[in-house]
């Protein structure tokens, strides 16, 4: 019996430490995603200014992202633009990002910025696009800065809570 309790305690302890670590990894991945999104916006803008190609080509063939989810989004957006079926470019951008919001795990504020950032790529001219982009990048930078500053604090709290929870369970078990 005692042996079982000890094994149970070891398992709970391992699980709580594992949970604490996975919380930390998740927060780091989320921050990495925000950086990837920022990079994506910059890459699209720079490619558009340099090559002056239509957005469907840029998104379909020119843009490479480390994040496979973002690559998938670019690909489907490019296909939708090529179909020319009614909606405007910025609207399609918003629809596609809105559809992927859950899989990306974005907060409401982050999703709002990214979904509207499409306005920076479908304007009348490059100046208009550049001005729009600077606005959305500024907002995204603020969110990234906040996430970064909160990351350590959140990580510490989540790790403490999960380890403490594990200890409590162990005490109850013993």
């Amino acid at each position, binding site marked *: 019996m005692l042996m079982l309790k000890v094994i149970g305690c070891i398992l709970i302890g391992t699980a709580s430490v594992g949970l604490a670590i996975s919380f930390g990894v998740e927060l780091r991945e989320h921050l990495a995603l925000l950086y990837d999104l920022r990079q994506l916006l910059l890459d699209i803008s720079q490619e558009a200014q340099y090559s002056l190609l239509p*957005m469907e080509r840029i998104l379909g063939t020119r843009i490479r992202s480390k994040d496979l989810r973002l690559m998938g989004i670019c690909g489907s957006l490019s296909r939708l633009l090529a179909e020319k079926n009614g909606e405007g470019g910025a609207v399609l951008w918003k629809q596609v990002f809105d559809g992927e919001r859950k899989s990306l795990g974005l907060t409401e504020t982050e999703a709002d910025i990214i979904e509207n950032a499409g306005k920076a790529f479908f304007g009348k001219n490059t100046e208009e696009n550049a001005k729009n982009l600077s606005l959305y990048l500024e907002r995204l930078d603020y969110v990234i800065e906040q996430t970064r500053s909160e990351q350590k604090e959140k990580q510490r709290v989540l790790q403490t809570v999960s380890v403490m929870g594990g200890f409590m369970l162990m005490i109850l078990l013993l």
Partner: protein
Amino acid sequence: MLEISRFFPVHIREEIGKIQMQGLEEIRIRIGQPIELCYGNGSRYFSLEEGETYRATKEDLAEMLDYISNYSLYAYQEEVKQGYLTVEGGHRIGLIGQAVTEQGKITGMHHITFFNFRIAHERLGCAEKLLPHLLEGDNIYNTLFLSAPGGGKTTYLRDCIRLLSTGEEGRAGLKVCVVDERSEIGACHMGIPQNDLGPRTDVLDGCRKPEGMLLLLRSMSPQVIAVDELGTEEDFLAVEQTVCSGSRVLGTIHAGEIQELQEKPHLRRWMERQMFERFVQIRRRPDGQREIHIFDAGMRCLC
């Protein structure tokens, strides 16, 4: 028609796809007005299946602009300034609205509400009969095609380029370089000529003629340089330099009659020096057919 119909709003696309293409030269779209289909022998309004004439709305035009520019108007800033852009298939779309000017120069276009789709019609082989008159051994005479606007000089020039570049039995193809300032000859879309210009043709697209001709002389060692719509003194100075460099020139100019060339003051100098050795005068008859006369350097009619 499929190429063109995809630029139209979704709700009329199917009907647009059904219109008669034979002889269609232009589709003109004006805000609040019926869509006009211009054929060689007259025009008619586009109507829906129910028979009612369809009037283009502001929303339709905005949607069309999205499609024409592939949702990327920024990519066509320069073309919009010029008032036209070339799309896949070589069709040219003229677009105008409220011009934005800076120090008297057009820097952009707002509220684009008038479109003119000029349907590309390549007439392969149309210049076959006149080519023997332009050949001088293995090369060609410096030749000027002239007609009134819409007369077809660019079409004949394009076919001449193709024939010269391709060659034939007993005549090798020539290295032809084209300065396509307004993308009318090759109709390049994303750098790819949409019209057949032959296997030995290089196209410098969207470049001013004087700079373009000199650039080609330096970089591409052309045997023939082809240009459209020569007009300014600067153009003819570049032609002179090209001719002096050993290349031949094929060009077009706006003129209804050959005598008009003598009356253009900035052309007189080159006419007197007989820089051009052949003139191809193209006249459009009321039935849409073309009447062609070829003249030599002394303005004598050869045929």
